[in-house]
């Protein structure tokens, strides 16, 4: 048996062909099935737009992106990642919508000494204790988004805040993010059963009875429009602050349903379709032309992912097998981001500006998130300090 093992190992070594750096292969894990399929499609559209904008070239290298489906399931996502790394032998793995999928998959990429880039998921573990020199995040750290929202709520003079969010890991993170920066009084906090609870009459009744002057919610995916329409029907009159609920994907759905309750509600994000820089104007215009809808922030981050990789590939002169050089190039990254200025903090998470956004009607009559004001800038996330490579 022992001999057999050795022979097998030798065979494996023989078949491991060296990669010739004429093409850069990028694996991109996202959701094409299950409740996240709409997000996955949006990200794919943005990646493909980015590829056409760069003429499918990074430096002298041709670019090949292999998309893989995680089905919104950590085990499935891990297996998809394994296929990319071991079978397709990609050079870089990117994508990931969901924190749990990323957490399950990260070691598969990092153990092979390859670079891993998250285009959305930003779990605190990977920003702090489990941070890794080859892991980069081009979106945000989960707590940042709601932390900035908490600041916004303070600024708006809200004293009593009511919180309704789903009871699962991300939901609890979002709530602790808001409560971390919100300085007023939490008038009530309802954590709902996820994902089975889709009727919030009870919570909205309680919220109304508590007479707060602000309502914070977090309902990603198809639950978002459902919550918004019930919020509107409950007619509570409480100003709405949402996280990852009102975005480029849910707004067209809400608009077609005439859910006007969402107009004038607030959320925070590091990007917005109306951000005025050349890269963003180019991105938003061409995306709208191709798909006749605004891109979501998921799309914006995916678009940035491709340009970030491109900048690094060009900085190392196409020698992508030199992971140390690639990492150094990414750390000092300088690419045209749709967010304007972009830099990584010490833990490879972005240090970026957060904006208060409001849902408004644009000139063409479409509902969209527009920037009100910046609320936070140049602040690394709270986990950066506990990260050492």
């Amino acid at each position, binding site marked *: 048996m022992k001999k057999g093992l050795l022979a097998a190992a030798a065979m494996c070594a023989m078949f491991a062909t060296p990669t010739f750096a004429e093409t850069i292969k990028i694996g991109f894990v996202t959701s094409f*099935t*299950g*409740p996240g*399929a*709409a997000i996955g*499609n949006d990200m794919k559209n943005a990646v493909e737009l980015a590829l056409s904008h760069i003429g499918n070239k990074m430096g002298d290298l041709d670019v090949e992106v292999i998309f893989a489906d995680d089905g919104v399931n950590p085990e499935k996502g891990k297996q998809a990642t394994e296929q990319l790394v071991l079978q397709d032998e990609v050079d870089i793995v990117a994508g990931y919508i969901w924190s749990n999928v990323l957490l399950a998959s990260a070691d598969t990429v990092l153990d092979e000494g390859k670079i891993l880039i998250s285009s959305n998921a930003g779990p605190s573990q990977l920003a702090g204790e489990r941070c890794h020199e080859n892991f980069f995040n081009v979106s945000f750290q989960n707590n940042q988004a709601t932390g900035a929202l908490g600041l916004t709520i303070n600024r708006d003079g809200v004293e009593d805040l009511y919180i309704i969010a789903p*009871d699962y890991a991300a939901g609890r993170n979002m709530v602790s993010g808001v409560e971390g920066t919100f300085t007023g009084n939490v008038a009530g*906090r*309802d*954590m*709902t*059963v996820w*994902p*089975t*609870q*889709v*009727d919030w*009459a*009870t*919570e909205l*009744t*309680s919220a109304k*009875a508590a007479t707060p002057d602000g309502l914070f919610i977090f309902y990603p995916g*198809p639950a978002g*429009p*459902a919550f918004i*329409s*019930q919020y*509107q*029907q*409950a*007619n509570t009159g409480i100003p709405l602050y949402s996280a990852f609920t009102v975005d480029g*994907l*849910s707004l067209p*759905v*809400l608009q*077609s*349903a*005439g*859910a006007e309750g969402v107009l004038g509600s607030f959320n925070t994000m590091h990007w917005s379709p109306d951000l005025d820089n050349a890269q963003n104007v180019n991105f938003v215009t061409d995306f709208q032309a191709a798909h006749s809808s605004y891109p979501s922030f998921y799309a914006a981050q995916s678009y940035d992912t491709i340009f970030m990789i491109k900048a690094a590939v060009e900085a190392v002169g196409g020698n992508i097998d030199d992971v140390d050089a690639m990492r150094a190039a990414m750390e000092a990254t300088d690419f045209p981001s749709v967010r304007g200025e972009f830099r990584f903090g010490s833990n490879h998470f972005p240090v970026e500006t957060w904006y208060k956004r409001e849902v408004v009607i644009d000139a063409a009559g479409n509902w969209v998130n527009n920037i009100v004001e910046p609320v936070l800038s140049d602040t690394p996330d709270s986990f950066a300090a506990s990260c050492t490579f």
Partner: protein
Amino acid sequence: MNTALVMEHVLNGFQLGMLLFLLAAGLTLILGIMDFVNLAHGSLYMVGAFFAATFTKLTGNFGLGILLAVPAVLLVGLVVEIVALRTLYARNHLDQVLATFGLVLFFNELVQIIWGPQGLVIPFPSAFDFTVTLPGGITYPAYRLLIIGMGFVVAFGLYLLVGRTRLGMLIRAGASNRDMVGALGVDIKLLFTFVFGIGAVLAGLAGMLYLPIGGAYIGMGELILINALVVIVIGGIGSIRGAFIASIIMGLIDALGRAFLEDFLNFFMTEGAAETAGPALSAMSVYILMAAILVFRPQGLFPPRSR
């Protein structure tokens, strides 16, 4: 906390229960009479919501949308019954569970291909966009009262149909002795198709009524189906009355549990512990209830008398 607030939560419980009942009624009829476990019942709920959304958008009127969607769901239900399910009646529950689970996968994918992954939301029907003030100073949305009323109407209608008509007699007779009724010259196949049709329409109707509240989206059927199964097991398989009462119990446990369980737990444990235990316990509560009932009263609370 005052009486009006508590009553509002109780009404919420009733409304949740009635939606559940519409789904469970068809499920328990099909299971009790045809001895057939139909997991695809949840798919009809989903399809009903999608049809109603599409027709409402086409006609611009929710009522018209429902009027068009009901026959459409009936058609889908009948096609499924004739093409796939009919051959499964004679099989054991295991085969039925597996085959109908296959149908669930199929429907989810088909709906995604036709309507896209993002789901549909319709404008709230303006005719019901007001609140009603009930005695005792309770204000409650008219639409949710409509759902509660609908549940009672359907329950009463089914009671009359099964208990007071010739057709209902055949249905009951077919359940206790299929061959005998067949020998008397009744077309059992047709009878079963008819019962399945009723179930399909009720499931679709539940989806349609939910539509203005939460929209139509893929997977909405599975979420509620497990609860409906729990309801019919608690109520006693085949019993409309049992399904009705169990639905209300479930709705009340759900709504009141969510509203007050955490405050209640605060009497016994620290605030942090109560906060984590609360939602977990209310998620588990329906299963705990079902397990307890199955252990101590396996036939359910209200088993049908004639079996």
